[in-house]
């Protein structure tokens, strides 16, 4: 079992009101599994993904990832896991506009102890996998939305993570570009990477092996 998420609660305090977002949520994901999560807007999908990525912490519950108790780790340890085992893909791409494609894809290596010559080959390979070698030196504003998302995917897969967390990766893309991105996810899945994909779109969710519905703070 790669991921064990048990009895998780999360709520946000707004003024005096406590708004529950995740309520007694369980989630188990096997190594190499492709899971997609669907749900209405505001149902807590992003919140879940952030907790899974170690960027946020739940109020209650347990979370084990790759045999580590994620909730008891220090900031350093959790950052290490993000940098080595996890890759994020966001709806809004989240690329750094000052850096070119190579710079953006190299970003995770900033916080890893990888030899410079190895970094170059990892980065090159990742850019090649998303088919953007001819755009290596371009900066984000010179790329289309689809291309930007491919750069973001290259950044996520460059470190060869165990799991990729994608939050509506096709939300800002047209159907042709979406198709291309989904192809990439399929390919990634075939090479053994676990993927958790959040989407509104049933067609998008259909690429996964297992579709979960987010409802009332729980997964069905």
């Amino acid at each position, binding site marked *: 079992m790669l991921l064990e998420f048990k009895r998780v609660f999360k709520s946000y305090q707004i003024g005096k009101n406590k708004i529950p977002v995740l309520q007694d949520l369980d989630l188990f994901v096997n190594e190499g599994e492709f899971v997609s999560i669907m749900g209405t807007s505001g149902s807590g999908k992003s919140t879940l993904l952030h907790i899974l990525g170690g960027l946020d912490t739940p109020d209650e519950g347990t979370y084990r990832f790759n045999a580590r108790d994620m909730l008891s780790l220090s900031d350093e340890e959790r950052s290490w896991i993000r940098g080595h085992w996890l890759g994020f893909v966001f709806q809004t791409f989240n690329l*750094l506009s000052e850096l070119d494609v190579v710079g953006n894809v190299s*970003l995770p290596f900033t*916080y890893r102890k990888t030899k*410079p010559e190895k970094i170059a080959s990892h980065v090159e390979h990742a850019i090649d996998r998303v088919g953007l070698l001819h755009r290596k030196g371009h900066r984000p504003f010179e790329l289309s939305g689809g291309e930007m998302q491919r750069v973001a995917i290259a950044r996520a897969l460059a470190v060869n993570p165990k799991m990729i967390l994608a939050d509506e990766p096709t939300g800002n893309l047209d159907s042709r570009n979406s198709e291309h991105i989904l192809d990439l996810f399929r390919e990634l899945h075939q090479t053994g990477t676990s993927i958790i994909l959040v989407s509104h779109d049933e067609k998008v969710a259909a690429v996964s092996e297992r579709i979960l519905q987010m409802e009332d703070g729980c997964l069905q």
Partner: protein
Amino acid sequence: MMPQVLSFIITAYHSLLIHKLRSLLSVLGVVCGVMAVMIMISTGEGAKKEVLGRIEQMGLTNIYVNDKLLSEELQKRAEKKRSYGLSLYDVEYLRSLSPMIVSVGAVQKVALTPVGTGINIIPSIFKCTANYGELLGLDVRRGRFINVQDSLNNRQVCVIGGLMSERLGSDGRVGKLIRMDDRLYTIIGVLRKVDKKPVKTAKVTNQNFNDTIFLPLNIPHNLTKFGTSIAQHSMLSSIVVEVANRENVEPAARLINRAMEYNHQGVLDYDVIVPLELLDQALAAQNIFNLVLTVIAAVSLLVGGIGIMNIMLATVTERKREIGIRRAVGATRKDIAFQFLAESSLLTMCGGTIGIAGGFISVFVIENLAGWPIEITVVSVVIPFVLACVTGVFFGYYPAVQAAKMDPIKTLRAE
């Protein structure tokens, strides 16, 4: 490490570039502060070096007893006490004062006029004891200095300064004659010409003896303390006392002071000057200037530092998203703090570099317009630069901590 630093530098560079003017203004205080510190150190070192040079020339183991002009009223009172300024009796007395004293020399300014030399420079003419050359470390280039025989036999010889010799041309060589008033003197030695310009300070003139003529000072065989003839005819300008080593300077100076007080019946018609003490005086004068500059430097660095803090806080807010992205790909809080700390230091380092460049220019201007001695050492560049870096780290600390504390979720949602 390499790509890390590279992506830091690129993002920092862009953030600075977008706000070129803002960055420049924020760093202005640091520039001023660094400049002030550099000027302070350079002028301080310059003054110190100059004074040290002068002390070395005067001799670190020398103590000077100089003649002091009294007001007319004081002069009358002094004469009542039979004190007539520095005399050869003082010389003899000091010579036998203590075993610490190795040698005592004397010099007397005389009013003679060289005749028929064809030059319109009026040289300083001194009568001096034979050991005077050695006491002051005078460098004789040709011939020899005055010796004891010249002195005892009151020979008509002289030693002239290097520039004097040059001015006289072929008449200024060893063996030639110079006429002063109604007497002829044979040149027996020529001093090396000194190139450095003499600089005046409060108490001592840094003479280079370039335009000086030395004559033997005749010492009569028997001296009596209250012999008016000696008192009147031996009005010395200065007595030089050499002690065995530097440790002796202070006790010997005390002894000399006491002896002179006794000799002159408490009439202060002399000054005891210890070259080592001149250093303190020169540095004391420098201190006022330093105080002003320290205040300027401190205020500039403080204001500059606050400017840096301000701009860094703005930068942190502007670059929230970047912080979130970096955290998502594996940056720890420490990594983020380090990045912004490095950035603020980099900013102040740039300011420091500009300040040092400005410092070089200011120091050059001060040297040439005000004529102050300047000494640019490694210290006068390194200290201001280090101060700039420290300012960057100190005032960049708070913004860096703010950046590290930022919640990555909020920054990633902030789109």
